[in-house]
């Protein structure tokens, strides 16, 4: 709400207040008079038609009531799909009056959703909506809508000048004053044309030997330059933001990336089979939503369950997941399960919203989750509470490890003549051979070249007291048929084929030793802060509930550097207690929306052969993959791979290329809300020559773009689209809307088609435009039907029927194996192996990267920055299976704790040593772990800056902005324990500066006194927050940070709003952002070439890099900071913030407030 609209205050009229006693007295008299007059008879009614005797009983003139009936009416309504970056996706009904959407409502159609077999969801699924969806009514017409295509002035000047470049290929920086430049409104044709010409120019510039020379001259890592293979198209990066949220329009950017091989074909004159497309950036792993340890244990991207299955559990651990604030439409399943008897335990770093809905609450130190889980495992093993039979059948814990090589003992090791039998559980494909279509893949597939990776292993047979062979086929019930009684603690000496003797121990035995030595509850208490007794009690509860304990893991622990260890440790606990793959017992990870694999038919759309397009909507498309995926974490890391002391830790399969152009849609996460935001803005973006963003709201990402395509809001869609979810069982259509476009916007599909058409003109090749030919023909449904036909859970649906139902507010159920969908379901039933080397849940990682990191066993590493202790150290006593490569062997000093070296630093400390160690910044008076979780008021940044939702975001929301320092109607804040704040001399509501590691934050090379630093250094309010332990501070993630424009607005505008005078961009901080304190981190074990895992779509099992499955995930919740008081919290900076001054805030309580808190205002006489 703009300040100009501020009306007079809501204060009551003072004149009335002063005269009210007299008035009341008069009225009291009049009342008596009227009452008695009325008693005389009816005629008075005619004189005074509004006379009221007893307004409790009757009121004479109620015609006015039609006023509210009028407000409530609508002329018509229609349904649209609200799908921001959460996991819900809600069909909403928009009510229209005079052509304008006046309000939004739930459809109550979820209870009518059916599958192909007549199964139906119940009305317990209704209503599905939230405050953010309702607020869209203020956003569809909001003043930050992108109202047309916009081009940055300098960029246009560069293009108009013919893309001039210097000797090394770089354009003059004068054209690239991003964030400080003016913007021009252009026509759609001009925007398409500019984009096509820029893409062509960049691809040409960086193609061939000349292109390679230029990239070298610009200083890119040589391995990155090599990765382009001379194709300039490889320097163009496209990313559909949260692609799963739009099967055609968001995945369309990847189709476009694949299409760009046509450009390479023209530029380098290479044949189709040698042409390279552009690069596609990852989605799920980019957001640090991927739980990176899941593929290490299960082989699959993520193990999870539809959240509503919680009512099938007896024990629900809500672990690092603020379910109540981030899974709002599915919260009732949790609260209903609880009222029906499910015990709910919150494992959290604060007394959270979810804690308040739990029976038990365990508060631990941020990022110490792997230690807690390992300690639970220690108790379960020590007290023999585990299910030995299930473990023997379904995990690699019985597998024997050679103590010389630390590799699994193979039958061929002991018998040179051993020939591995053929496997039934996996089919090997010879080169050129193709597996059946995804929807028909009943079994697992792998390339024949990977055959030896699935070779048999050995276990110690207790009966025979010898190592015996077990194959990948011997899982579940089949294992029983072997008649082997594996000794989990089996140790022995084995004679190898060459005659040498070697000691072997089981994974279980090695793991047990690690746990016993380092992870007892007493150890865990020191590391995590969880009382030892609590760990014991919790472990017993879990063990007492096999198949009935759900581990609902959240984004919290997932956003730490040790996230994969957390996954591996939690799975260990779940596997020991038979809690993987059951309706009431399973592990799930919930961050972002993923499970694109539900759209298993996607390759037919994304990878359609651009050289041979199928232009008959009913025809079968052919597939040709010409483009590479890449993790955007390298871009975020300064467009670099992980190279420390000139040693490369990024595997070749992961290697990024230099980023010269990027085009993104449906996301504010890659610039505006990126971790290390100001480093990206100041150090990385200057290397880019073209940034296009498609959005319908002017975000922080638009602030730094070159072209912004204004696209349709969800309520204005002119082409249908489709999405689904990882947490609910529905496939949902975005229905086409009857609402007239409010501004000069286009659909994302039209934008893709528009640029593709422009490329056709540039190259004189109509195949570019034909790639999106169905858009102009209004047949986007055909693309959707092709996807549906290839998707295992959707095959059988007709897109027209799904679309029609969606228009009525009804989604459809995905035809998964079960309702609710339960990962590892087939595995727990013994029908299929897991998608791993052994076919089992794996707790030992023999790959070289894990061995070098000392993480072949599941161990504990301290967080990389979010700790008061020495960061990222391995915690262990000497262990025979832990042989990490020391810093010295990389040429680093052991004392080198710089944030760069820290990423590859394998230093081992015992628990006792860890407790004595210190974060290096402690010496500089840094005091707090600072984390930035998500909250209920935003789905990412949608729609936190909308007035109605903004004022409710936190304690400082004030729609009238009485205090003109406020950046908007609300503002970001940091939550500090009141005792910590007081110790620092900071009051509730004060403003403080927050500084993280000065070596690299807010950005590398910052200089105090510059505009860049002023914009980047975080200043925000302090809230006294008694729910957070001392030493831990928090700021919510869902905020718009300061930009050059917002700071200019805040400092220059009369009303003080932090709103860009040029773009209207609205920040919720005066300076800096919650991302000022974060940075990018790359983890060696997430960049391996050989980790075996399931492919994205279908049942193929592959190795190494896979976007959104095995690649870096960053650690955006890690930072260690100090606070510096900046301003007082009172109005305009004068004195104490009013609620604190009145004695109503924590630690400021006045005498009455204390009585009130104690409940002393009402007593019962005893």
């Amino acid at each position, binding site marked *: 709400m703009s300040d100009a609209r501020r009306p007079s205050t*809501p204060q009551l009229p003072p004149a009335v207040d002063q005269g009210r006693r007299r008035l009341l007295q008069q009225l009291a008299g009049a009342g008596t008079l009227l009452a008695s007059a009325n008693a005389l008879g009816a005629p008075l009614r005619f004189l005074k038609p509004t006379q009221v005797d007893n307004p409790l009983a009757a009121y004479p003139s109620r015609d006015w009531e039609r006023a509210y009936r009028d407000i409530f009416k609508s002329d018509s309504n229609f349904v649209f799909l609200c799908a921001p970056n959460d996991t819900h996706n809600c069909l909403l009904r928009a009510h229209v009056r005079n052509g304008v959407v006046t309000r939004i409502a739930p459809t109550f159609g979820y209870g009518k959703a059916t599958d192909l077999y007549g199964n139906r969801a119940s009305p317990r699924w209704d*209503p599905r909506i939230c405050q953010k969806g309702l607020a869209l009514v203020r956003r569809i017409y909001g003043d930050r809508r992108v109202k047309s295509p916009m081009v940055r002035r300098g960029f246009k000047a560069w293009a108009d000048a013919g893309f001039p470049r210097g000797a090394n290929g770089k354009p003059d920086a004068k054209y690239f004053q991003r964030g400080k430049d003016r913007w021009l409104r252009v026509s759609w044709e001009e925007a398409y044309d500019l984009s096509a010409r820029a893409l062509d120019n960049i691809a040409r510039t960086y193609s061939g030997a000349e292109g390679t020379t230029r990239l070298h001259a610009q200083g890119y890592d040589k391995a990155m330059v090599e990765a382009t293979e001379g194709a300039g198209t490889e320097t163009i990066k496209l990313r559909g933001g949260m692609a799963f949220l739009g099967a055609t329009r968001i995945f369309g950017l990847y189709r476009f990336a694949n299409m760009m091989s046509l450009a390479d074909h023209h530029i380098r004159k290479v044949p189709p089979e040698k042409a390279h497309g552009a690069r596609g950036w990852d989605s799920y792993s980019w957001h640090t939503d991927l739980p990176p340890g899941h593929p290490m244990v299960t082989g699959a991207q993520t193990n999870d369950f539809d959240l509503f299955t919680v009512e099938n559990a007896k024990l629900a651990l809500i672990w690092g997941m603020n379910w109540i604030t981030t899974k709002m439409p599915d919260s009732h399943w949790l609260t209903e399960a609880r009222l029906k008897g499910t015990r709910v335990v919150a494992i959290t770093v604060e007394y959270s919203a979810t*804690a308040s809905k739990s029976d038990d*609450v365990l508060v631990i130190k941020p990022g110490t989750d792997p230690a807690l889980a390992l300690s639970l495992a220690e108790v379960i093993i020590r007290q023999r509470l585990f299910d030995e039979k299930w473990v023997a059948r379904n995990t690699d814990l019985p597998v024997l490890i050679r103590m010389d090589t630390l590799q699994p003992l193979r039958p061929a090791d002991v018998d040179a003549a051993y020939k591995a039998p053929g496997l039934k559980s996996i089919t090997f494909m010879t080169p050129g051979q193709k597996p059946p279509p995804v929807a028909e893949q009943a079994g697992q597939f792998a390339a024949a070249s990977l055959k030896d990776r699935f070779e048999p292993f050995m276990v110690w047979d207790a009966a025979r007291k010898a190592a015996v062979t077990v194959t990948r086929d011997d899982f579940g019930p089949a294992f029983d048929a072997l008649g082997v009684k594996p000794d989990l603690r089996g140790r022995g000496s084995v004679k190898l084929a060459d005659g040498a003797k070697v000691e072997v121990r089981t994974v279980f035995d090695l793991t047990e030793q690690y746990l016993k030595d380092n992870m007892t509850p007493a150890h865990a208490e020191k590391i995590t802060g969880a009382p030892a007794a609590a760990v014991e009690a919790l472990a017993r509860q879990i063990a007492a509930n096999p198949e009935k304990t759900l581990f609902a893991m959240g984004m919290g622990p997932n956003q730490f550097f040790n996230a994969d260890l957390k996954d591996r440790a939690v799975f260990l606990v779940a596997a020991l207690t038979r809690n993987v793959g059951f309706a009431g017992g399973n592990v799930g990870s919930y961050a972002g929306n993923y499970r694109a694999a539900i759209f298993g038919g996607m390759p037919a759309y994304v990878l359609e052969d651009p050289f041979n397009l199928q232009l008959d909507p009913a025809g079968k498309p052919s597939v040709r993959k010409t483009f590479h995926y890449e993790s955007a974490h390298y871009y975020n890391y300064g467009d670099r791979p992980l190279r420390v002391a000139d040693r490369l830790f990024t595997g070749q399969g992961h290697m990024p290329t230099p980023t010269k152009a990027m085009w993104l849609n449906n996301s504010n996460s890659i610039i505006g809300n990126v971790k290390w935001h100001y480093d990206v803005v100041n150090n990385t973006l200057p290397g880019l020559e073209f940034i296009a963003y498609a959005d319908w709201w002017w975000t922080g990402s638009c602030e730094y773009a070159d072209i912004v395509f204004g696209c349709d809001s969800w309520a204005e869609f002119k082409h249908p689209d489709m999405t689904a979810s990882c947490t609910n069982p529905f496939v949902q259509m975005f229905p086409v809307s009857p609402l007239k476009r409010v501004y000069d916007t286009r659909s994302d599909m039209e934008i893709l088609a528009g640029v593709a058409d422009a490329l056709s003109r540039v190259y004189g090749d109509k195949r570019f435009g034909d790639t999106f030919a169905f858009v102009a023909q209004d047949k986007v449904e055909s693309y959707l039907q092709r996807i549906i036909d290839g998707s295992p859970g959707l095959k059988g649906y007709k897109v027209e029927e799904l679309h029609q139902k969606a228009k009525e507010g009804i989604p459809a159920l995905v035809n998964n194996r079960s309702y609710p969908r339960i990962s590892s379901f087939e595995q727990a039933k013994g029908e299929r192996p897991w998608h791993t080397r052994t076919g089992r849940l794996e707790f030992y990682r023999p790959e070289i990267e894990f061995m070098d990191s000392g993480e072949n066993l599941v161990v504990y590493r301290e967080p990389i920055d979010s700790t008061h202790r020495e960061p990222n150290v391995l915690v262990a006593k000497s262990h025979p299976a832990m042989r990490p490569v020391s810093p010295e062997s990389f040429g680093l000093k052991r004392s080198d704790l710089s944030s760069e070296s820290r990423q590859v630093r394998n230093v081992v400390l015992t628990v006792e040593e860890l407790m004595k160690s210190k974060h290096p910044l402690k010496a500089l008076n840094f005091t707090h772990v600072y984390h930035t979780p998500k909250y209920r008021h935003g789905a990412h940044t949608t729609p936190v800056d909308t007035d109605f939702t903004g004022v409710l975001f936190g304690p400082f929301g004030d729609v009238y902005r009485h205090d003109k320092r406020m950046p908007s109607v609300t503002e970001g804040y940091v939550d500090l324990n009141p005792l910590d704040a007081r110790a620092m001399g900071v009051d509730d509501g004060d403003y403080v500066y927050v500084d993280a590691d000065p070596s690299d934050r807010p950005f590398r090379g910052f200089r105090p006194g510059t505009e860049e630093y002023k914009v980047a250094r975080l200043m925000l309010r302090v809230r006294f927050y008694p729910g957070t332990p001392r030493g831990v501070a928090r700021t919510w993630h869902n905020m718009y940070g300061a930009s050059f424009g917002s700071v200019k607005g805040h400092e220059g505008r009369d009303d003080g709003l932090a709103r860009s005078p040029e773009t209207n961009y609205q920040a919720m901080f005066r300076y800096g952002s919650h991302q000022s304190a974060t940075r990018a981190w790359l983890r060696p074990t997430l960049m391996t070439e050989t980790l075996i895992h399931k492919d994205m779509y279908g049942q193929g099992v592959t190795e190494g890099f896979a976007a959104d499955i095995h690649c870096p995930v960053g650690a955006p919740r890690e930072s260690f900071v100090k606070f510096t008081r900046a301003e007082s919290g009172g109005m305009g900076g004068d004195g104490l913030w009013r609620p604190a001054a009145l004695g109503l805030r924590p630690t400021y309580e006045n005498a009455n407030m204390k009585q009130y808190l104690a409940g002393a205002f009402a007593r019962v006489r005893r």
Partner: protein
Amino acid sequence: MSKVKNWQLGREMDYPYDESRPKRQWAIVFDLNKCIACQTCTLACKTTWTSGKGQEYMLWNNVETKPYGGFPLAWDLRILEKLGRQEWDKKGIYAGKTIFEAAEPNERVLHYAPVDEDWMYPNVGEDDCANNQEAEGYTRSLPHDRWFFYLPRTCAHCTYPACLAACPRKAIYKREEDGIVLIDQSRCKGYGECVRACPYKKSMYNPHTRTSEKCVGCYPAVEQGIQPQCVVNCIGKIRVMGFINPPWKAREDNPVDYLVHKKGLALPYYPQLGLEPNIYYIPPIHAPTDYLRQMFGPAVEGTVERYRALQKDPVAQGLMVLMGSTDRIMHRFSVDKGTARGFDEAGAELVNVPVTEPIVERAAFDTALNSVRNNTP
């Protein structure tokens, strides 16, 4: 002053008008153990009713965090301070004074007037817990040693409204057909007496229209058999709106009567103020009894046990998963063989739901469609 019967106090009390109960009384029950403070109700109300000029700060429905939150600021502490410490007797009869009985001479209601700044910060105190979480630790079982809970609030359409009592123009009235309390916008002169008098601070002044406004109970919806916006939009499914009977006319198959009268699960808030409010809360089981007693009266003792007992109560479970499953007003409900049903006034079924969703297993391969059906696609 008349003597009127207030069943929530277990006694008669003074009120400026004679007792007159409407034919039906609008009421909402809220299960605070399910409220997630998502503010969807708040936005549903705001986008429907108060998006106009002069209404910027106005939230007829709000959700605040107790104990540190309140909209307007500290509204309940303010009126409790005014009223002073009060007592209930051993039988649960209110022995203290109501705000009508404690009114100063020549006043009808004991009151306080919030100032402009009190309406700032509508979500102050959000998620702030009582008792400092100084270090890590473990809370086993209930109640919690640290706690907060969410309190969603609408106008309570009281049986004895203070706003109505205080209006010098008698421009506030209670509808006989549903008990909804309205401020006649054509007659209101904006004196603000209702704003001062309502202890729950649910009358609000509009400086643009210069009238006072309040929650209208969504009567345009209720008249069509549809529940209010804040109920229909409640994704926590914590609310059910219906028509409550006084205890002496309670009907066991009426959802509201069942929760309030039959099970004793849902209680009025601050009943000691004497308004006989018609919004009822199932108290949060993790908060301390002393605080809850101050807010919900002595009947709060035992609600934790009663709530826990629901684990073995299929009928109550059925009703509680029926909550929010229909947008229509349920006049009657039944639970039988794991299925809960809601019925309209005429007895027609509005909705039925399973108390627990069934687990459906599909065939691993659909031969007709030639497609696998798996859980790890």
